[in-house]
């Protein structure tokens, strides 16, 4: 059952990604596809931070693992956080195209591992969600962090103490600091 459903989802997603008014495109989902052709259970996604938020300047990659009993069990989403030490940073070469950001500074994302804490991807999961709606939910999570269940305590504390400006600037600094230049 899961393969059949994933195949249907893939068909809808590839149609929606090229449509300009689809929810995927409107929410800054740039890529959502299986990692390799023959395997429907490993996906990757590329998202852009929501417009008007401190994340607007960043691009991130997500790795998605679909369990064999999907959609009864939720898929696992993780921000890809490679530590490319030798990578050329976008801030050093202003002319190059901005690539993806190597870290996700967010109260509900683990800064080291990229693990995401979002209730609908855990205990509140229902099969009514799909891969595309889950990715959209993650994009929306960026703009509405939940500091009460933090994975990144420092950022959550800034929010809890009401220092919105400090939070915004720190996030922007991290995005600049970890965005690589694409060759």
């Amino acid at each position: 059952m899961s393969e059949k459903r994933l195949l249907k989802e893939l068909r809808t997603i590839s149609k929606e990604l090229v449509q300009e008014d689809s929810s995927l495109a409107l929410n800054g989902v740039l890529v959502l596809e299986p990692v390799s052709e023959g395997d429907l259970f490993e996906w990757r996604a590329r998202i852009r931070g929501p417009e008007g938020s401190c994340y607007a300047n960043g691009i991130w990659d997500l790795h998605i693992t679909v369990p064999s009993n999907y959609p009864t069990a939720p898929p696992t989403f993780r921000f890809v956080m490679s530590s490319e030490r030798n990578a050329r940073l976008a801030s050093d070469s202003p002319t190059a195209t901005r690539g993806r950001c190597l870290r996700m500074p967010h109260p509900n994302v683990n800064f080291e591992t990229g693990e995401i804490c979002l209730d609908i991807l855990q205990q509140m999961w229902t099969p009514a969600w799909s891969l595309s709606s889950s990715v959209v939910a993650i994009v929306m999570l960026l703009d509405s962090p939940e500091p009460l269940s933090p994975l990144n305590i420092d950022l959550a504390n800034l929010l809890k103490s009401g220092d919105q400006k400090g939070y915004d600037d720190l996030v922007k600094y991290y995005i600049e600091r970890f965005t690589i230049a694409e060759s």
Partner: protein
Amino acid sequence: MSEPESDNVTFPALETYLTDANAPVIVRANQKDSYFENVLRGKLQNVIQIFKGQRMVHTHPEEITVGAKALYLALTTLLGSKTLGEEYTDLIYVSRNKKRIPKVLTRLTFILSYTVLPYYISRWLRRVQLREEKEEDEKTATSKVKRRLLGFFKAVSYVKAVDVLLNIHIAIFYFYGSYYNFSKRLLGMRYAYGHKVNEQNAPKGNYELLGALIMLQLFLKGVGKVDSVIQQEKLKQVNASAEDDNNDEGDGVFYDAPIQDEDNQFESAIDLSDPDVLPYIPEDSRKCMLCLSYMTNPSCAQCGHFFCWGCILDWCRENPHCPLCRQPVLEQHLLPLR
């Protein structure tokens, strides 16, 4: 050893003033005893928990029960005093002919056969059964008669046989009210009143009705069992002859059967990809949001949402909520649409 005289001396006129206890009194004494055995078991469990830890208590529940029983009887019957239940109803043990009080050795044998023996027997039976099941798998080529006999014994498993035996024993007890336990019957330890009973208003009667009911139940069970065994044998024979026919006639018969089965399956499934099936469901609600395909065997949850039977069953076995509105949905409340 506390009463050496009573062990050896016979009382010539004992039967004239020791009246047999009847079933209700014995049952009452037994109930009281089992209550106190339980209390003792609880205390023993606490002690074991303190010295050996909770794990021991959980891994050896049977052993603790047997130990508590043996301890209780050893402290009462073995020492020659009454158990609390016997004291409550004033009963004493007498020998089969009511002329002696059972000896220490008899009492010890009784306690062992009443507590430790059943424990070992049940363990042994379980082992034997396991081993036989294994052997059954390995065994392939045996003569037909032997196989049939084996099959019969297989059908009447040892555990069941012991159960039946014990039931018969209880029924006999209800009729005659003499020996409540099997070991007591074997050792001839029966109960008599420890006080003088006026013959006229002595409580008479046992549980004859109960005994009769048990016997009737056993009889009916036996009839049913024999019947089912005979039916099975007949079925086997029919199957065997059918197989022979198939082999003789060749391939044609083999191919017919599965195709028929498929047809039946197709008829029983309701597939909404066919617009003529359940036409009152509008096109945009004919797909199941769990598998994203047209529904097969559409089923309604209590909240009114529709899913494939298989999809929603898979989901609500793990999470008893509707995937769409999170209202509680139980497997048994799903309503298949026809």
